[in-house]
């Protein structure tokens, strides 16, 4: 039990409990925001676990989640678009907080890894994670509606 695993435990416990509470209760807009939050919480914790267990191969899990998590949110945003148009979720504070946490975790893990190809892989994962979070949040607010018709 080192500091990395402890940080991952705290992040998972607090973040995923909040996400579960948001997904299981309340109006649809809150549920969608909570679903978007899960990948923003789980991906940095996977990076922390990869560092804590001294297994660089676990970064592949974080990379895959950073790619597929926003895809899942986009699936819901597309298939529930009619219901979402009535009550648009607005949670930019949460989005920027999640982006900040992700950036902090990526910087910490990069500093622990040291300059190498592995650090570039971590940076690519971080960019995909934060970019995917922003794209999914914007899609939830209906920002990409004009693409559907074309």
């Amino acid at each position, binding site marked *: *039990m080192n500091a990395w*695993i402890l940080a*991952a*435990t705290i992040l*998972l*416990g607090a973040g*995923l*409990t909040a*996400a*579960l509470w948001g*997904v*299981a209760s309340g109006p*649809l807009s809150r*549920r*969608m925001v*909570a*679903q978007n939050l*899960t*990948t923003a919480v*789980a991906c940095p*914790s*996977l990076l922390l*676990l990869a560092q804590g*267990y001294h*297994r660089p*191969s*676990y970064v*592949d*899990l974080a990379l*895959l*989640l950073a790619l*597929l*998590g926003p*895809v*899942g949110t986009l*699936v*819901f945003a597309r*298939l*529930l678009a009619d219901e979402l148009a009535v009550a648009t979720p607005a949670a930019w504070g949460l989005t920027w907080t999640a982006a900040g946490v992700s950036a902090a975790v990526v910087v910490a893990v990069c500093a622990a890894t040291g300059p190498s190809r592995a650090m570039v892989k971590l940076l690519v994962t971080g960019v995909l994670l934060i970019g995917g979070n922003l794209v999914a949040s914007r899609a939830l607010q209906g920002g990409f509606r004009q693409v559907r018709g074309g």
Partner: protein
Amino acid sequence: MADAVIVVVLLLVAATATAAVATRDPSRQALVLSLQGVVLAVLFTVLQAPDVALSQLAVGSALTPLLIMLSVRKVRRRARTTDEGGDG
């Protein structure tokens, strides 16, 4: 002491599964199942099974909710057309 993360994630799996069962509407249930997929993948990671976690992420985060949502849409669309056919 290193087992604390395993205990936390196991509790999360139990709580998520209970929430998935307690949710009634299928489209809301798909949202909870997406969360459950990610939590299961984290569980497999802390149990030192990253290949299983990789497969679980690939299936549970985007594919299973997509299947459920498409099925719900298809069933509702068919129910709507049979209603219109019956009245008309």
